[in-house]
C-alpha cells in the first residue's frame, strides 16, 4: 500500500513536472510567435495598399458639353471619385461629429463651415447619418487650365437619419439637386461651393401594377442540392446534379423553386463572375424543364448600416441586370427572414434598408414582382405596401396555420400571399426524445397541404433532401438545433422517398 502511494506521488510529480514544462514551453512559444508576427518587411516601404471604395452610389454623367474645355475621361474619373468621397467623408464626419478627413475633399472655407456645423451637432448631441443612392451630374463648366469644374448634380436620391442622443428624430428619403464647384488643389479635387438648387419635384414612387406572373400558381419547394446545402454555387457546383434534381422536381408536378444567393460568397459589391455564371447555369437548367425560379438575394447579409447601403446596391444591380431577362425568373425575394435581425440591428434600420432595396431593384427591373421572405406570418405585416405580394414562412403546429393565416389576412388587405417556406423534420433522436418519425412528418404534411389547398394558397416547401451536414451559420452550432434541421427533406440522404413525398405528390397531382 505504501508502495502504491509512493507510485502515485511519483506519477503525480512526473506529470506535474511535464505539465509545468509544457506550459512554460507553450508560453515561450506564444511570445515567440507574437514577436515574429505582425508587420511584415514590405511594410517598411509604406506601399499604399489596395484601397477598396466603400461608397458606391450609382452615378452617371448626363452631359459633358461645356464652354470651357473638353472633359478628358481620366479627369472625369478623378472628379467623380473625389466627389463621391466628399460625400462619404461628410457622411462619416456627421455620423461621428468629427471633421476627420474633410480637409482632403473640401477647401478651407467650406471645411470651416462644416466644422462649425459639426461642433454645433456635437454640443447638441445630434448625429446625422446619410447616404446618397444615385447621382446624375451634368457638367456646367470645366476651366481651360483644367483646375476648376462646376456641375449640377440633379435629383440626388439620398437617405438621411437624424438622431438626438438615442432617439431618432427623423429619417427621410430625399431628392435634392446640388450645384457643386470643385477645384484641383495638390492632386485632390476639393469641393469649393456646394449649393442646393431648390426644386419642388415630387418623388416618383413606382407603382406595383406591372406584375405579369400569377403568383397564385406557385407550387414548389426551396432548393438546395443534397450534397452541398447552403453552398449551391461553391466550387462543388455540379450542373448535372442540378439538372437531375430539377427533372425530379418537375416530375412531382411542381412549377417553382426558391434559391438563395449568399451576399458575401458572391463577392459583395463586386459580384464574382464565376458564381454569377453558375447561377445563370442553374437558371438555364430550370428553364430547360419549365421551372420558375424565385431568387432570394442577400442571404447571410446582416449589416444594414447606412454607410453599407451603396455596396449592397451595387451587388443587387449586378445580379438584377444579369438575370432580369432570364425567362426562368419568377421574381425577387429581397432577403430571407430579415425580421430575425430586428432585435440585433434595429427594426427601423432593417426596414429602411429593405424599402430602399425594393426601390433599387424596381429601378433595374420594373417587371418582376418583389417580395420579402418573412420568418413568420406575424412578421408579414411589415412593408405590405412596398412588396408586390407577401411571402412568409410557417414552421409551427400545422393545426395553428389557418387561424394564424386568418389573423394575417386582416392586416394585409387584398395582397396575395405565398407561404414560401414550411416543413417538418422527421428527426427522431436524443434531442427530441425520439418523438419524431417519418410518419409524423407525413401526417403534418398532410394537414398542411390540405390547409393550403383549402385556403388556395401558393406554397414552397422546405425542402427536397435530407442533408448530412448543416453549416453552423444556419442554425448555430448546438446539436439540438442542427440535428432536426438535417431531416426536413422528403427524400432521405440515401435517395429514398420518404412517406411525406407521397403525400406531397398526391396532393399536387390531385
Amino acid at each position, binding site marked *: 500500500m505504501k508502495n502504491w502511494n509512493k507510485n502515485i506521488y511519483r506519477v503525480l510529480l512526473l506529470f506535474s513536472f511535464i505539465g509545468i514544462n509544457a506550459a512554460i514551453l507553450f508560453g515561450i512559444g506564444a511570445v515567440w510567435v507574437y514577436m515574429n508576427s505582425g508587420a511584415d518587411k514590405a511594410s517598411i516601404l509604406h506601399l499604399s495598399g489596395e484601397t477598396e471604395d466603400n461608397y458606391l452610389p450609382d452615378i452617371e454623367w448626363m452631359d459633358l458639353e461645356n464652354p*470651357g474645355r473638353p472633359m478628358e475621361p481620366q479627369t472625369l474619373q478623378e472628379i467623380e471619385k473625389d466627389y463621391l468621397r466628399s460625400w462619404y467623408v*461628410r457622411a462619416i464626419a456627421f455620423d461621428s461629429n468629427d471633421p476627420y478627413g474633410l480637409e482632403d475633399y473640401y477647401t478651407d472655407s467650406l471645411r470651416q463651415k462644416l466644422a462649425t456645423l459639426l461642433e454645433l*451637432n456635437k454640443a447638441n448631441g445630434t448625429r446625422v447619418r446619410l447616404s446618397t443612392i444615385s447621382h446624375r451630374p451634368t457638367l456646367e463648366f470645366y476651366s481651360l487650365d483644367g483646375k476648376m469644374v462646376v456641375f449640377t448634380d440633379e435629383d440626388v436620391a439620398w437617405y438621411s437619419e437624424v438622431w438626438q442622443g438615442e432617439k431618432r*428624430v427623423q429619417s427621410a428619403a430625399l431628392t435634392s439637386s446640388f450645384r457643386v464647384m470643385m477645384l484641383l488643389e495638390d492632386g485632390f479635387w476639393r469641393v469649393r461651393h456646394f*449649393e442646393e438648387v431648390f426644386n419642388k419635384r415630387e418623388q416618383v414612387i413606382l407603382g406595383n401594377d406591372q406584375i405579369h406572373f400569377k403568383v397564385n400558381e406557385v407550387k414548389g419547394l426551396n432548393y438546395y442540392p443534397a450534397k452541398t446545402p447552403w453552398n449551391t454555387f461553391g466550387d462543388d457546383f455540379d450542373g448535372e446534379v442540378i439538372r437531375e434534381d430539377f427533372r425530379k422536381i418537375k416530375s412531382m408536378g411542381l412549377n417553382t423553386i426558391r434559391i438563395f444567393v449568399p451576399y458575401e460568397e458572391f463577392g459583395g459589391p463586386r459580384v464574382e463572375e464565376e458564381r454569377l455564371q453558375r447561377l445563370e447555369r442553374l437558371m438555364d437548367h430550370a428553364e430547360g424543364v419549365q421551372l420558375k425560379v424565385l431568387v432570394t438575394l442577400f442571404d447571410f447579409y446582416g449589416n444594414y448600416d447606412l454607410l453599407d447601403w451603396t455596396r449592397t446596391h451595387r451587388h443587387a444591380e449586378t445580379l438584377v441586370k444579369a438575370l432580369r431577362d432570364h425567362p426562368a425568373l419568377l421574381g425577387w425575394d429581397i432577403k430571407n427572414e430579415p425580421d430575425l435581425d430586428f432585435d440585433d440591428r434595429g427594426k427601423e434600420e432593417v426596414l429602411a434598408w429593405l424599402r430602399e432595396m425594393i426601390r433599387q431593384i424596381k429601378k433595374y427591373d420594373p417587371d418582376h414582382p418583389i417580395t420579402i421572405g418573412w420568418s413568420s406570418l406575424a412578421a408579414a405585416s411589415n412593408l405590405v405596401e412596398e412588396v408586390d405580394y407577401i411571402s412568409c414562412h410557417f414552421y409551427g403546429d400545422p393545426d395553428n396555420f389557418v387561424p394564424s393565416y386568418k389573423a394575417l389576412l386582416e392586416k394585409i388587405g387584398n395582397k396575395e400571399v405565398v407561404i414560401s417556406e414550411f416543413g417538418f423534420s422527421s428527426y427522431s433522436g436524443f434531442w427530441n426524445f425520439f418523438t419524431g418519425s417519418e410518419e409524423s412528418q407525413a401526417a403534418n404534411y398532410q394537414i398542411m397541404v390540405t390547409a393550403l389547398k383549402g385556403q388556395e394558397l401558393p406554397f414552397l416547401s422546405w425542402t427536397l433532401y435530407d442533408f448530412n451536414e448543416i453549416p453552423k451559420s444556419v442554425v448555430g452550432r448546438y446539436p439540438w438545433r442542427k440535428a432536426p434541421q438535417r431531416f426536413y427533406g422528403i427524400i432521405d440522404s440515401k435517395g429514398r422517398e420518404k412517406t411525406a413525398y407521397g403525400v406531397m405528390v398526391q396532393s399536387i397531382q390531385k
Partner: protein
Amino acid sequence: MRKLTFILLCVFAFGCSRPVETNQSLRLVSLNIPETAAAGGEMAFEFHISGGGMPVLLLRNALGQTVIDGKRDAEEVIFRLPSSFKEKSGPCHWSLIYGDSTLASGVVHITPSEIEPRVETYLGPGNIMAGRTDHTILVAVPSDVYGNPLPDGTSLTLRKQVAGVLESEGLNTNSLFAWKRVYSEERATRGFLSVIAEGSHSKELTFDIHPAAPVDFEISYSRNHSYADGNQVITFSTSVLKDPYNNTVSDGTLVSFLITNSGGKILRAQGTTIHGIATARMLHPDRADQWIVRALVEGIATSPEIQVEFLPVMRSFSVKWNASTSHLDVGPVESFLKQFQPDGLRVILKVTDEQNIPVAELSGELSVGYARFDLGQLGLPSGKYGASVEIGGITKEIPFELKNEELE
C-alpha cells in the same frame, strides 16, 4: 433609520419609474416663419402651440442637418437659428417635430447678404501665345461676406489692360460664376485684369502673352579662314527669329543645324536662342570639303540652305623610308602659309605586301609638322612592302623593303 430607508426606497422607486408619458395632445396653432430672409440676419421661427411638451426643430441646408431646441413661453415657442443655418444661403428646410410626429415643415429661402461682396477669381492658363486665337479664361465667383455665392445675374465689371490699352466690360453670373475668354494680342506682353462686384475690390490678375511660333529665318556663318585644317572652329548663327507678329521668339528656342558634307554624311549642331539668335559651332574638316547647311526649329520653321567651301591646306608632303631603323618619316607637312600644319592632324598609314594585300594600318598625329612610324615593331617578315600615307585627303605612296635581322 427607518425613515431614511423609506426615503431611500422612495428615491429608488422614483428613479426606476418610467418617464411620464409626454402629453400627446400637443397641437400646432399657428406659426410665424418668413418665406425668405437675407443671410446673416437674426432669424427666429415662432410657433404657437397648445398643450404641454416641447417640440424640437430639425434644420437642413446644403451642408448638413441639425436639431435645435427652442424656448417656450406660455404657448409660444421660439427657435433661434444657429449661425451655420442663418448664414448659409439657399433653401433651409425645417421640420417641427414632437415625439414621432412632424407637426409642420417648410422651406425658408435664404438669400445671400448684400454687404461686402467679394469676388474670387481664377485665371488660367497664365501663359498664352501672341496672335488673336490663343486665350485664357477668367472665372469669377462673387460671394457675400459669409462665402455664399451671389445669385445668378449678378453683374460684375471686368477691367483689362493689355499693351497699354485699357478696356472695361460687364459680366453676368450664371450658375455660381461668371466667365470670360480673354484673347491674346499680337504683341508679346503682359496683360492685367481685375474683376469687381459693386462695392468690392479685386486682386491683380496677370497673364503673359508669349511670342508665337517662329517663322522661317536666315542663317550665316563666320570663320577665321577657309582652309580645312581640322583645327579652327566655324560658327553658324541665325538671323533674329521672329513670330508672325514680329515678336522675337522666347529665349531658349532650340535650333538644330544640319550639315551635309560632300560625302553625304550629316553632322548636327544645336543652339538655343538668346534675343532671337541661336549660334552653333563646328570644327573645320581636316580635308577639302563642301558643306550644305540648313537650320531648323524642329517641326516649326526652317532656313534656306547655305554652302560653305573648305579649301585644302597642302598640296603635297614627303615620306621617307629609313631602312636602317625601319622608320617611316612623314613630313614636313606644310600649311597654306608654308607654316607647319598645326599639331594633332591625323596621319593614316596603310601597309600592303607585294601582292597588294593590306597587312597593317596605323594612325598617328602630326607633331611640329612631322609624324614617324616605327615599322620594325609590327613584326612583319622581311620582304617588299608598299606604304600609303594619308593626311587631310592627300595620299602619298612609297615602296620599302623590310630587312628584319632579328627574325632570321
